[in-house]
């Protein structure tokens, strides 16, 4: 009886020690869910969700303080992905949030006065230029977040929708008439 208690006690202490060690050794810093949500978000860093970037929005979703339908650049597809990830119901965009066609910023280089305000606003460093020098957008790096548009004092930045080219063209979903069912 006593030996059995001892044995059980010893096992409990050993397992407890192992668990305790594992908890410290394999401790995960931060919330792994935030990274998973962040991976689904489109990373435009546009702040249209009301949070100052994709990561803060992901954190807010993980904490349960933000809805999943606040990201227009992600589109409905993004909401579907978030719903799948979080095991919640799909929620359509509310009211005024409408996804826009993907675009990139374009600086009218003859109007640009070289004030660097847009460079400071760009969340992904996609604008090159220096004080009193012409600025330009690296189109390949531009996420189309529109954050550079309001600070420009001479309104020389416009958003240009990305055109369909032979390299980004997609085969369309097949559409055809189904057979009229033969009356029996």
């Amino acid at each position, binding site marked *: 009886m006593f030996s059995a208690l001892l044995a059980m006690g010893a096992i409990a202490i050993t397992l407890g020690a192992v668990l305790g060690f594992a908890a410290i050794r394999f401790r995960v810093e931060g919330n792994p869910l935030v990274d998973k949500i*962040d991976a689904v*978000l*489109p*990373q*435009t*860093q546009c702040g249209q969700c009301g949070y100052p*970037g*994709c990561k803060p929005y992901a954190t807010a979703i993980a904490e349960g303080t933000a809805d999943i339908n606040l990201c227009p650049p992600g589109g409905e597809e993004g909401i579907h992905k978030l719903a799948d990830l979080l095991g919640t119901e799909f929620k359509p965009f509310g009211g005024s949030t409408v996804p826009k066609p993907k675009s990139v910023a374009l600086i009218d280089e003859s109007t640009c006065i070289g004030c660097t305000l847009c460079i400071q606003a760009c*969340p*992904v*460093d*996609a604008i090159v230029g220096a004080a009193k020098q012409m600025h330009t957008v690296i189109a390949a*790096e531009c*996420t189309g977040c529109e954050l550079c548009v309001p600070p420009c004092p001479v309104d020389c930045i416009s958003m240009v929708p990305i055109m*369909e*080219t*032979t390299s*980004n*063209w*997609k*085969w*369309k*979903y*097949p559409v*055809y*008439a*189904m*057979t009229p069912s033969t009356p029996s």
Partner: protein
Amino acid sequence: MRKLYTFHGGVHPDTCKAQSNGRPIAKAKLPSKLVIPLRQHVGHGARVVVEVGEHVKKGQIIGQAEGHVSSSVHASTSGTIAAIDMQPVAHPSGLPELCVTLIPDGLDEWVTLEPLEDWRGIPHSDLRHRLRNAGVVGLGGAVFPSDMKLYAHKHKIRTLVLNGAECEPYITCDDLLMRERAEEILMGAELMRELLHADEVLIGIEDNKPEAIAAMQNAASKHSSMEAIAVPTIYPGGGAKQLIRVLTGIEVAAGVRSTDLGVQCFNVGTAYSAWRAIRFGEPLISRIVTVTGNVASPQNFEALIGTPIAELIAEAGQLPGTTGIIMGGPMMGVLLPSDKAGVIKATNCLIAASDALFPPPKPVLPCIRCTRCAEVCPAELQPQDLYWFARAKNLAKAEDYHLFDCIECGACSYVCPSNIPLVQYYRFAKSEIWAQQAGQKAADAARERHEFRESRLEREKREKAEKLAAKEKAAAKGASPPVTDKQNAEPVDEMQRKIQAAIDQAKAQAATVKPRNTEQLTPQQMAEIAEIEARRARIREIAQASTDAQPRE
């Protein structure tokens, strides 16, 4: 007799080759204009190096290869550059691409070429460079720059497979090329074998082309370790993986390159063009195009790249009732939205479609899961499941079922009793997945850049604060204590901090530098100062009086 292997599935569509293979290759007339796209191949488009109005000679580079995977583009004949602009190209989308429009001057005058009498002494890197500059790309359909495939791989390449199977119905361009130019094809094969350090060359030709087989076997007998082999006619026996399987028995698994298994594959037309490029310095400015279908005299033309498709079809005599132009074969080809576009390096066949030849598709019925598609699939996929997933836009699942092993041969659609356009679904799903992957890649890049920017801003802030602290320390050391109380008040933001720093610095300077002219003065100077002070006091009094008298409102 060599042992041949078989691949799974396959179908036997009516070959329809007899219409066009009875006539020799004709040289197409010089067209009224040439529309040459700068991106005819996989990878980066060529960079245009000519200007509008410039006169170019035949074979002159008009687009220089740029980037890792790229190939040069040349003027197909001598003439004047009329335009460099966006034009619709031979692509199923009908979207425009940057094209050079060339108006021929009729002289067909060559640029000075650099022929090579003997290429054997030339370093392989030079030969590859020549191929790249000559714009040699795969002519079997994939249009991959050939120089990229012609190097000694990590794995020893044992076998070079030359693909002359030409399994698609209607197409006879490789057939005619092999019949008429077998010697040169094999010269090209020899060159390729050398570049690959391969041991043997196997030329696979479907047994419905006896003349081509005879010509190639005759030519191959003059080369050691080359063999032209008749393979059974079964569609899609001309697929690279399928032909490799038939000739060598090697099964190229999903996600594995044939080069990892010691086999490299080229089209016979590519071998011919590579030979012309190396031996004679001739860039790839023309190719053999089968013009067939609803035309008066179906035949093969050697057409200049850029020849408007409508003009080439007209040369074969387009018959009334033509409903559209198919580029490629009826199984894998695409319906071109416009016949204004120019012939590109991938254009192996142009079929004038008519309702008699290609009746309108029968009504689509629901899938009955008969699995006939699975029986004929040469990639051993489950097309009925892929169809299901693609239809439901369940792309992840489609990928799990190896959608990307599908070669879009169309055998499944061909046998489908419900007439379902299966390949269309697979193409849709593939391009959708590619778009998603591109989006994900862009998002990852954006995340990385954003995080880098955040950390950079953080670092800059820290560095500024450190700098400021160091300055303050230095100032405090050199000067007397007067400003300490102000320093303790935390500046609210960057600007205030800067202003504060400037004020502090000025004060510190003022404290260290003492005005020298206020000490040890002579009595005369003291008297002068007193006088000045008295004058200032008087002026102040007068000023005070006047402001009091006229108070400003």
